[in-house]
């Protein structure tokens, strides 16, 4: 029971981990693991996830095709099709819930905590596009004004997209505040 609780604690907020200090999630993508092994491991995560989700679609009589991919150090599974809005929900709430359950299903099967990313009906892709635009505008403001800009509260997944965009622009950023009001702050170059 205690072991379970710990396992979930670590699996809970891994979305930002890639840009933050190496935490527990870093062990999952340890540099010691050969690339081929890692890809294989992530592909099998995708397979477990796809089985879990496909049967749910069957039961709910929803049409959707499953795409599996490996993106960097995590498995990515997308359900594509029309009429999937109920599975996304307001602000992606249902999508987040399904992603969480899917990660637990992978954990049950492989014994490893998963950072698998689930997308449904292109929702995350759309969010990503908007956030990249928002981040670029904020980066331009920071450059013009030479002052830090604090963005609105975001989920770990959203913050990661902004951090990545800031890093690509050769500026730095940090997160401050406590969930669910945690915000990205973009810092001016020194």
């Amino acid at each position, binding site marked *: *029971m205690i072991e*379970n*609780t710990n396992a*979930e*604690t670590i699996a*809970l907020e891994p979305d930002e981990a890639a840009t933050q200090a190496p935490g527990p999630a870093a062990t999952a993508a340890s540099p010691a693991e050969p690339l081929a092994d890692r890809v294989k491991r992530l592909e099998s995560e995708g397979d477990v996830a796809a089985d*879990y989700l496909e*049967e*749910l679609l069957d*039961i*709910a*009589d929803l049409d959707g095709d499953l795409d599996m991919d490996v993106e960097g150090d995590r498995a990515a599974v997308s359900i594509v099709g029309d009429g999937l809005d*109920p*599975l996304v*929900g307001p602000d992606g*709430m*249902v999508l*987040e*819930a*399904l992603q*969480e*359950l899917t990660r*637990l*299903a992978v*954990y*049950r099967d492989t014994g490893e905590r998963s950072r698998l990313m689930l997308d449904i009906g292109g929702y995350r892709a759309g969010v990503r596009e908007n956030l990249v635009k928002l981040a670029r505008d904020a980066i331009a403001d920071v450059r013009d004004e030479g002052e830090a800009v604090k963005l609105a509260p975001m989920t770990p997944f959203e913050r990661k997209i902004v951090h990545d965009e800031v890093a690509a622009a050769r500026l730095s950023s940090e997160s401050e505040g406590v969930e669910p009001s945690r915000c990205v702050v973009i810092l001016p170059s020194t």
Partner: protein
Amino acid sequence: MLPEALDHLVRGIVNHPDDVAVRTRQQRGRNPHFAGRGETLEVRVHPDDLGRVIGRSGRTATALRTVLQALSGKDSIRIDIVDVDRRR
């Protein structure tokens, strides 16, 4: 469809899938808040899996409710999670 969906979602995350059983109970107004609002889904799991299905701070149970609510298209659906040893 909802009991099957819940059964599948829970079975996939527990260590004792064969012990998972879902049944539908009609509300009989025992809880005034939910009186007359239809069904409760009751999912029974192995005692060792109870923590896993509920999750830290009820996070997994909330995720299950969120997904089931989305599938049902209703605002309120009640899910009770109990272990197989508990008597009704």
